[in-house]
């Protein structure tokens, strides 16, 4: 009797030791682990954190009023006289005598807002359209499939235009303002998210567990919300991160084309870059500061997004 329990105990010990390796094998936990180890992901996360902090505390921390042309008389565009870095203005002055550092800080908030709202818009509308479309296609009958076709034709139409042109048309319709930027860039993101959601929904609705759920008589709406949606989240989150990066850059491009906020005193990196470029020969820093800020921020989101994609991709986990 005791030898038998001894044997069993000893064996239990040893098998427990080997199975430790396989704990926590959920897809999210593993992805998170992979991300923590990836230098690219960490860099991206750090950049994003810095950016968010800047945007949030900017207005409280900025040394001067970004709109007031406090040192206007020290700067002269016609005489190519600009003021660079110095003790009282860490990044110097802009072309109208405003403190560049404060403008950059406050600009972070504007750019973040544009990026986030545009992406949210694209995400929300795209999710709704794509989700409905996909659910109808995967789970519905004839009517469902027709709905899907109609919605997708609409999405195709939006995709028929290169993104910048689509944004431009919308901006032309709405007039110049910051809100226009957000809406225009957001609308461009809609078809991307719509396609993603739809594809994910359709793929999921063909999977075995959905078949099992239907066989068990689970109501279709419950299947969609409790099962399919959570499983589709992975690529969507990746896309949202990448879209944020694109949104920031496209907003800058629209400002460059003169479609942004006409009130040039409000600091926004895209507008600052567009204006700063005209002085590139004599005061390159005025273009460089916002450009570098835009590039690094977009890079931060892109790095994180790409790292997440690799972490969640089952094929690459070899």
């Amino acid at each position: 009797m005791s030898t038998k329990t001894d044997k069993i105990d000893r064996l239990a010990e040893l098998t427990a030791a080997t199975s430790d390796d396989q704990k926590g094998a959920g897809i999210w936990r593993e992805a998170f682990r992979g991300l923590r180890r990836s230098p690219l992901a960490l860099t991206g996360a750090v950049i994003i954190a810095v950016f968010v902090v800047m945007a949030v505390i900017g207005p409280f921390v900025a040394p001067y009023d970004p709109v007031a042309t406090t040192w206007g008389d020290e700067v002269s565009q016609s005489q190519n006289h600009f003021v660079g870095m110095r003790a009282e203005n860490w990044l110097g002055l802009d072309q109208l005598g405003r403190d560049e550092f404060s403008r950059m800080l406050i600009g972070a908030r504007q750019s973040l807002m544009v990026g986030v709202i545009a992406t949210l818009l694209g995400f929300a509308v795209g999710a709704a359209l794509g989700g409905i479309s996909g659910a109808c296609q995967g789970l519905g009958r004839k009517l469902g499939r027709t709905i899907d076709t109609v919605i997708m034709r609409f999405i195709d139409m939006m995709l028929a235009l290169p993104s910048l042109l689509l944004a431009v048309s919308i901006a032309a319709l709405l007039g110049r303002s910051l809100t226009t930027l957000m809406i225009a860039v957001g609308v461009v993101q809609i078809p991307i998210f719509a396609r993603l959601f739809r594809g994910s929904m359709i793929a999921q609705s063909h999977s075995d567990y959905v078949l099992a759920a239907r066989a068990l008589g689970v109501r279709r709406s419950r299947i969609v919300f409790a099962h399919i949606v959570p499983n589709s989240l992975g690529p969507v989150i990746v896309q949202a991160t990448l879209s944020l990066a694109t949104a920031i850059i496209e907003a800058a491009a629209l400002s460059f084309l003169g479609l942004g906020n006409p009130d040039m005193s409000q600091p926004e990196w895209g507008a600052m870059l567009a204006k700063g470029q005209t002085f590139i020969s004599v005061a390159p820093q005025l273009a460089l500061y916002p450009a570098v800020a835009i590039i690094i921020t977009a890079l931060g989101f892109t790095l994180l997004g790409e790292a997440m994609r690799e972490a969640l991709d089952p094929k690459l986990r070899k």
Partner: protein
Amino acid sequence: MSLLTVDDLSVTFSRRGRRPTHAVDGVSFSVDAGQVVGLVGESGCGKSVTSLALMGLLKRAEISGSATFDGIELLSLRASDMRDLRGSQLAMIFQDPLSSLNPVVPIGVQVTEILTRHRGLKGAPARKEAADLLDRVGIPDPTRRLKEYPHQLSGGMRQRALIAMAVACAPRLLIADEPTTALDVTIQAQILELLRELVDDQGTALLMITHDLGVVAGLCDDINVLYGGKVVEAASRRPLFASPTHPYSVGLLGSIPRLDAPRGEPLTPIRGSVNDNIAWTDGCAFAPRCDHYTLACLEGTPDLTETYTGHKYRCVNPVTHHEAPVTLPESPAAEA
């Protein structure tokens, strides 16, 4: 001297943040010209990894030990020399014929490219030879097939095509990794027969990797049973089936469904799964699943014992032959 002698071959994979996996752990066996040797075991026991290591197709793995082919040490060969040997002297047939063929290149080209590389044939003579090869492996209307793509052929024909590619240059050693697993049973028999013919005609040495004992029974002269990366039993065909000694081999044989068994008799699988192993350093890896297990099994790696007949087993409490009499299972290719 054997054509292929594998001595204490070990293959270890290390991944970032995980414990290293000893896929192959001190495996030794040999294959003579004209002989068919089997490597048997469930998935994950290291048999495929062994073959890939021999062919030099493993990347990012630590390989130690020795593998001599006709006097040449394969494991320390320069990459370019290994490339010369592959396809001409050593060839391999893989498990899944559809994924093992390039989908966008016609079958004919996939055969002639070997002929061009190792036998210097080009153009029309190459195509003629390719058609002959396809014919030899039993593909009907070979000249037409040359222009077809893999997805246009049936599973059995794809495997035959792969075999044709493998034997195109009359290799001295052929490694077949589960060549019939992805095929229907009737096709299985045909493929095995084809392999046997080729071996008999050319005097090729064949290393047969499989988990299917039926295949082994009909084809192999010597058999090595692998578990957890180590050889746990090695014997010639008749002794292995007549008196299997290691509890794992006994379990494998006992788990084959028998047509002549009385109705209603339950199947006897081996309990647990390959994941229920313990490390060899702690004892016998098979212990958690073994009916014969004693405490002595947990005192380090059991040694490989060899009987005077050359029957080897790695067990401290083996099955003695009167406990488990097993008759040779019927197999369609067992005509010899």
